[in-house]
Each structure stands twice: as C-alpha cells, then as structure tokens.
C-alpha cells in the first residue's frame, strides 16, 4: 500500500484572502427541548489564540464538541478554512486539519508514551490501515514521535505506560497527542484543569511553545492564564457569545462584568 500524504493543513498565511481559519455561523444545539447553544457566531483568524471563558454550564465544552464533530449541530454552520465541517464525523474533521484535547484526560492507557504519540502521527504521515509495514521501520513516524516527546518534556518516560504517568504528565501527553497530527486549528478543553499554580505556569509555557503558528482555541477558567495567553477572548454565557474582543476590551465590557467576570477581573488585575 503506497502512502498518501495528507494535504497540508491550514497554516498561518495559507488561507485565501479573507477566509477565516474557523468560522461559526448561527450555531445551535438542542437536547430535546432544551437549547444549549443558542446561535453562536464566531470568526477566528489563522494563528490567533482565543480563550473561551464563561460560567460553568454555559456550553463551552458543548461548543467544542460541536466544532470537533463529537456532536452534530441542530442547525447552523461550522467552517474550517472556508469548508463546511458541521455534521462530519470526528475523524473526517481531524483529517481536514482540526484537532482537540479533552477536559478529562483521554489517552491510550495501555500504550507507552512513545506509542501514544506515534499513533497520533500515523494518519497525517499517510499511513492508513496498512498491516504490511513494520512500525519500527517508519522512520518519519518514529522521528516525529521522538521530537514530540522532547517538545512535551516526556522523553525520560518514553517507555512508561500512559496509565502510570502522573496527572500532569498525562495532561502533557494529551497535548502531545493533540498536536501530533500537525493540525492547523487546535482546540484545548481546560488543559490546566486540576493543576497547581507552578504546574499551570509551566504548562502554559509548553502550550505557547508547541502551538506556534497554529490557531488555538482554549477553554480556561484561570483568568491569569487567559489574560496572559490569549489574543482575544470569547465570553460564553447561556449558550451565547456575549463578547469577543481583545482582553482589555473584554475586561472593560460592562455586559461581561455584569454577567461573569466581576470580582475575578479585580483578582487577576491585582494579583497578576
């Protein structure tokens, strides 16, 4: 079986004039009669770093699920580099250049760190369902997996089974698997959940490093992280985006202050 290399995923500057890296148009999702996502419009440029914030239950994870194909929208559009992806299966969306991580660590527990990362790169390097080649001979896959291990700082633990890593290490592995395929648009769902202050700071530096040149959307609760990392912030409340602007503008937005930030802003300003 000959290799079929993937078309290069959307990268900075690659997009035809005016097209957004990721675009949501009047996206809606109902569960039964309950409207969870109530008409979300969002347009993200290539290379931008967007933080998605909002109170618990606002629908942030649901939004990510809709974009990444885990859920199908009730109505509305999701466009990746101009191409509609709503209603597609997750693997189809991933092949088009969008990848995501999960709030609850979602890796392959009985595979080693190296194997986890190697699985993440296989499709993007063109290895399909082949059983006629040995993994140990796939030099590009092995090299890329090694490089990823170094990037996420897990090289000393290359042979350790994923289920035996510490929590922070598993989160790092999760990021590694997410970026492994070289997707241009990365969705990170609460990447620093459950981490201490020092771990978080370290982790954010890691995220910045590994997502250079890619479009990043991340759900976050830690305001310090948000204001330090993001180019723009999208504020989601009750299934709607009530503000989408630079951090300074969002901080000053009265609607946002009223609905959500309030004292959290003061904390971030004071303690940051």
């Amino acid at each position, binding site marked *: 079986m000959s290799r079929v290399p993937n078309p290069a995923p959307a990268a900075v500057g690659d997009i035809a004039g005016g097209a957004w890296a990721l675009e949501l148009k009047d996206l809606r999702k109902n569960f039964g009669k309950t409207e969870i996502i109530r008409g979300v419009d969002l347009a993200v440029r290539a290379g931008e770093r967007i933080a998605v914030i909002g109170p618990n239950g606002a629908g942030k994870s649901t939004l990510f699920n809709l974009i*990444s*194909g885990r859920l199908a929208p009730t109505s509305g559009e999701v466009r990746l580099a101009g191409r509609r992806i709503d209603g597609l*299966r*997750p*693997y189809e969306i*991933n*092949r088009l250049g969008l*990848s*995501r991580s*999960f709030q609850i660590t*979602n*890796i*392959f*527990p*009985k*595979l*080693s760190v*190296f*194997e986890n990362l*190697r*699985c*993440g790169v*296989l*499709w*993007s390097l063109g*290895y*399909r*369902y*082949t*059983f*006629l*080649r*040995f*993994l*140990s*001979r*796939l*030099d590009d896959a*092995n090299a890329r*997996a*090694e490089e990823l291990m170094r990037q996420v700082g897990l*090289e*000393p*633990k290359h*042979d*350790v*089974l994923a289920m*035996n890593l510490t929590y922070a290490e598993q989160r790092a592995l999760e990021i590694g*698997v997410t970026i*492994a*395929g070289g997707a241009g648009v990365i969705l990170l769902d609460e990447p620093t959940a459950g981490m201490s202050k020092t771990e978080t700071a370290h982790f954010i530096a890691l995220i910045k490093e590994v997502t250079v040149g890619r479009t990043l959307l991340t759900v976050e609760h830690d305001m310090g992280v948000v204001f330090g990392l993001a180019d723009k912030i999208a504020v989601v409340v009750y299934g709607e985006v009530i503000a989408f602007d630079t951090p300074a503008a969002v901080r000053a937005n009265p609607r946002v202050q009223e609905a959500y930030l309030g004292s959290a802003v003061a904390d971030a300003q004071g303690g940051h």
Partner: protein
Amino acid sequence: MNTLASGTARPTGYRYGVKPFNATRVLTWGLFALALAVAPLVFRSSLALTMLSQIGYLIIICLSYNMLLGQGGMLSFGHAVYTGLGSFIAIHTMNLAAKGSLPVPLVLIPLVGGLGGMFFAILFGYVSTKKSGTTFAMITLGLGELVASMALMFPTFFGGEGGITTNRVYGTPFLGIPSLTFGPQIQVYYLIAAYCFVCTALMYAFTATPLGRMLNAVRDNPERVEFIGYNTQRVRYTAFIIAGFFAGIGGGLATINFEIVNAADSLNGIRSGGYLLFTFLGGATYFFGPIIGAVLLVFASILLSELTKAWLLYLGLIFLFMVMFAPGGVASLIMTNLRVARFGRFGPFWALYAGLAVTGALTAAGAAALVEMIYHRQLNAALGPELHFLGLSLDTSSATSWVLAAALLAVGGFLLEQVRRRFVRAWGHAQEQIEAEIQRRLRHRGGADAGVAP
C-alpha cells in the same frame, strides 16, 4: 515484557530504528520452531500425536481469536462461524480436487479455508463491527446462532446430520515424493506444524504494524482514535477480516486432520465458547497467552474429560476464579511472577505459593469428592454406591463419606482464605517496592530501560 504495547526492541545504539537480528527474538522463535519439530519425536504415542496435531491448529485459531479479544478489545461469541465455514469451504474444495474439477494440492487447502473464513468475515464483519463492546458481543452471538441454524436448511453444503466427509489422500504426492501422501498422522502433524509456525509469525508481525497498533489504540480508547484521524469501525472491520482469515486456516487444518466436518459440532455456540474460555484462560493480554490456551484446551477436552465426568463443571469453576483473581490468565501469572523475581522480591512467595497449593488441594479434593459422588449417584446408579476417587473408595450411600467430604471442603476453604489474604498483602507489598524501585531508577538514569510497569 508487555509485548502488546511495544513492538519495538531497543538494541544498543538504535532507539527506534530498524531491528537487526535481536538475539532474544531469534532464540525464542528458534526454540518455538524446534519444539514444533521435535515434539512428536519426544512424545511418541499415538495419543500424543493426536493431541499435538490438535494443539497445532488450535494455536492458530486461539491466536486469531485473541486478535479480536486481547488486541482489539472485541469480545466475540461467534468465532466458530469463521473456523467452521472455513472448514466447510476446505472440505468441499478437497472433494472437488479429488474429483479433478479443482486442482488444489492438499498443502494449499488450509489457505483455501483461510480465504473462506475471510470471505465470511467480510460479509458478517461489516454488520458485526458496526457496534462495539457489549452490543458487539451480542451481535456475534446472534450471528453465530443464525449460521448454526441455517446449517440444517442447506444440506448440500452443510451435509445435514452426518456432515461432509473427505479423504485427504488425493492427487499427486507432495513434491513428487511417493511416501508423502499425508495419509499418516505424522505427516499431517508436520503440515499443521508448518502452518502453525508461519501463521504465528505472521500474527506476531501484525502486532508491530500500524493497523495492529491502531487496533490496540481502539481497544484502549475507541473515541480518541476518531480524533486522531482514524475511523474506528474501519480499524475493527479490517482486523476482523484478518482474524477471520487465520481462523479459516485453522478450520482448514482441522478438516485435513479429521477428514469430516459436521455443522452441529463445528459452528455452534459451544465451540465459540470454548475458544473464548481457553484463550482467556491462557491469557489475553500477552501474545503467547493463546498458545498456552490452545494447549490447555486440548489437555482438558481429551485428558480431563477421560478423568472425570464433571470436567465441564470444574472448567466453569476455574474460569470463574480466573476472571475474579487472575484476569490476565496463565500468561500474566507467569509474567508477573517473573517480574517479581527479576526485582529480587520473590523470597516470601515460595512459602505462600506452597500454602496456596496445599490448602487449595484440600479444598479442591473436598469439592471434587462431593461433585463426583453426586455424579455417581446420578449417572452410574446401576453400578452400586461405591466410587473410586483418588485411590480411596467412597460410599455414596453412607453418610460418613458425605460428611467427610463436606468437612474437607469447609476446612480447606477456610484455610485457603487465610492463606489467600496473606498472599494478597504480600503481593501488594512487593508491587509497592517494585514501583519505588522503578521510580528510583527513572530518576537516577533519566533514560534507558527503566522497566515497563504492568
């Protein structure tokens, strides 16, 4: 250690590059080939030859089953469909070849069986792999019953109650040598052994391919697989087809061995259950587990069944206890104990294992005595109340025998539980110490061979 997780070896110098001839690997496979070649010379009786022949193709079948269970996390209750249909395709081909309409030499018949198994796996696998987990298991059960029931409806293909017979001596002898007709059992054994070696090697190689690894990933986290670009169902379906191919080869070899295929025997749920039970007993988490399972299957069905009428009951009990206490099967028992020994912590376990063995034997003796006595009253009532058990004479009509057996069971069971608790404590302690050692080595070396935790 965990051969399912790492298909790569790391000889000095290369980390993940091409494996040169790795000494351990060559030794293991060499010993395997040697064992296959030499076994009938060491065990010379015709019973031994029968058993070895059956072990040979059952290894292929159980390994193919473990491709689904151990590697893919797919619990199938209908694997006999693919071995059985492979058998039928093989036997019809043999009969056609004997008549001269299809010139297929006997040595290629297992491949024909394999293609048969693969064909039906393509057909049924599409529907089966649409779902996963428990639903998949139920579907395979239903499909198994479907095919088994259909057998009665198509007597020309399935041969009705009597099955289809054949003669494996047909056409020209192998390689033109007049004595190699495959009539004698020893020649059939070597044919089986050759296929066994090649198929085992192929299935092992599969675990080191991208599809093999993605199959493991699907087992571990089917949802995540979709988010790294792979269609989970397609991975499962492809693996299902490959497993069906090897299952069919096993079925074809069985056909050559017995020269008869009967739908009632070959396709039913009991046979599927047998493959499941013994693959699991052998150990689904290690590649070589099913090989042990195949050996156990033949020993149980040929020797144990001669020893006692209650063998299925004992088997059920052993299976139950295995699931509860050692879900990794015999293979994991071996490997985890080797691991403890490797870290030098096996000391306390000599006495503990001895204790388990003694108390276990007492309990088993008491239970077995009761079971045998009940069976004796049930089935052999005409033979009178006396029963020979382990060299003693038990009288089913007297209360003494019953009371003694029950007492033995109770006392043995109580003691067994005491030893077991002590064992579990010691085992947990040893695991902790090993963990600490591993962490220490990781910190110390920060790199090479830190040991793989289970």
